């Protein structure tokens, strides 16, 4: 996350993270064990050095620079995690499904922060608008909103927690190791990666490197699902 820098990365551009950090003029320094202090109006690099010195003053406390995107990110992330927890812990299925909408909405907000505007909107359209509606629709037909009776709590919490932690660690490890995943495909397209034109070229372009084949395979899979649903749903 650019703009959210730990103290040891504030070094004026010598570490790879520092490059990201010193492009963003942070208005506030917020330190643990210290009050937020307004940033002095200095040239940027000098300000960073000052900030580093400031942090060393606070006995190696974690110094976090907060700018507007980071604040928005923190808000969205908090909403996302909180409502995700609500989805898995609430006993009332309808409430859980409605919190799922909030999860998808917060995820869309984070996509917007990452300049992936199109993906954010598609996230709302497909997940919040269609998938959750489908879930709600199914619940509405079952007439049994309370999962307390239908599926009583089981005793696999520990295993579930282990698997979740392992998955999360794996994802974090993968992203920390390899930053070239996302950049490889960016080179193939001409427009900015998040734009509609860029995504269109990436998906459909017959000339440059694109994902036409995976896209078509995915649509065939969906077609199979649709045909299967019709076959099951037929009355005769």
């Amino acid at each position, binding site marked *: 996350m650019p703009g959210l820098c730990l103290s040891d990365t504030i070094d004026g551009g010598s570490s790879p993270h520092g490059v990201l950090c010193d492009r963003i003029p942070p208005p506030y320094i917020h330190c643990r064990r210290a009050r937020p202090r307004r940033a002095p109006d200095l040239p940027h690099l000098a300000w960073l050095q000052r900030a580093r010195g400031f942090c060393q003053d606070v006995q190696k406390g974690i110094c976090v620079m907060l700018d507007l995107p980071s604040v928005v990110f923190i808000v969205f992330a908090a909403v996302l995690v909180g409502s995700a927890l609500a989805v898995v812990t609430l006993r009332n299925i*309808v*409430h859980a499904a*409605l919190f799922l*909408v909030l999860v998808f909405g917060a995820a869309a907000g984070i996509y917007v922060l990452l300049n992936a*505007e*199109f993906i954010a*909107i*598609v996230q*709302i*359209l497909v997940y*919040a*608008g*269609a998938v*959750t*509606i489908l879930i*709600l*629709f199914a619940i*509405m*037909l079952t007439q049994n909103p309370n999962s307390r009776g239908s599926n009583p709590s089981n005793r696999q919490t520990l295993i579930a927690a282990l698997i979740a932690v392992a998955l999360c660690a794996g994802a974090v490890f993968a992203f920390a190791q390899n930053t070239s995943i996302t950049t490889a495909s960016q080179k193939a397209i001409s427009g900015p990666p998040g*734009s*509609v*034109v860029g995504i269109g070229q990436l998906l459909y372009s017959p000339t440059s490197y694109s994902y036409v084949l995976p896209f078509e395979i995915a649509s065939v899979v969906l077609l199979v699902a649709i045909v299967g649903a019709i076959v099951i749903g037929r009355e005769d």
Partner: protein
Amino acid sequence: MNIGFEIVHFVVNLLFFILLISTNAVIMVYAERKVMAYMQDRIGPKHYGPFGLLQSTYDVMKLLLKEIVRSRDTDNSVFIVAPMIFFAPVLTAFVMLPFSPFVTQSALATGLILYVALSSLDVIGVFMAGWGSNNKYALIGGLRSTAQMISYELPLLLALMGPVMLTSFVSHGGVGSISFTDITHAQLAPSWRWFVLLQPLGLMIYYICGLAETNRAPFDLPEAESELVAGYLTEYSGMRWAMFFLGEYGNMLIVSAVATVLFLGGWSGPGADLAFWHRTVTANPGGIFSVADIIFNVIALFWFLVKVYILQFIFIWVRSTLPRLRADQLMQFAWLILIPFTLANILITAALLLAVPQPYTLWVTGIVNFVLLAFFIGFISRAIGASPKGELPPWVKMRQQNLARQAAISAVATPRLAKPESEPEMARR
């Protein structure tokens, strides 16, 4: 782009949108009652203010003062949040609508998709209202509305693809756009080419789907009074109820505005076009302010609102004309008529844009689409009449019935005309 301009821009737009949503609802409530009254040979509200103009104002005051009633077993949080969830996407959708070059909050590159996404979020509010009310009428209304909105979203989105394809043909470089601002600009050519001339079928189908998305007659099954009391609104009262109505009228406004932007040239019109083409700088939000700019923006806004209110008038007209559909007819209409037609429209338009050589492309596309529109209208009039093959179409039958009735009336009336002769008989009795 200086910050002062941005702030002024934002404040002006925000005020405009909020005031437009609220006044639009009041105006439309009044217009609906008055227009429908005249169409049904009544007078409508007339007591408060000249021509009853203050009727809606009093209604709003009544709603504001009304006690909010809640029945005991509602799902409380869902019940309370539902009107807000219904209203929020409506307010958000105004962000990317270009009312005029200045009154456009964001020339978002993905405006069209965002509009579709927001209109799909509305369903959640309706569902929550239906579920939270703990009332079987509300639940059935919510269920119906959900099914209807999901079904009609598909042809709605497909009908919007026509203008998008046209932008890719019209604009330089062959790169299309789904930004509302770009689509408006694509229609502002010196040669007059609103997309309704090239995609009349698209406009027709989009408008029909808009009727269904906003739960308006003839698709108002979710709130069918004769079957479901008031559908998902049954348990609501006071301002919460009004919030749903604000949302519904806001939705009508948005549907009309999107139709205006995509098919009717947005804010283009006599005066606005010329100014745009002679002084292209003014179309840039962020440019320098001058009196000419303000006049230009007012003219643009005027044309936009005129088109929007004509479309909203048609909403009322349709409501007072057509009877409500049955639930199965509603689904069949979406899946068996609208979706095949929109898909055919996309295929034919794309093929024509690619195949027909340059100077004639738009002409051929437009003419073929008008033929398709005529075919569509003929098809739905036959499908709605549900007459077997060989039977006369409904309007012919109606005309015959009218003629027969006329004949019967004149047959009854003739002896009366010959009154003087029969007078002695009357006297004898």
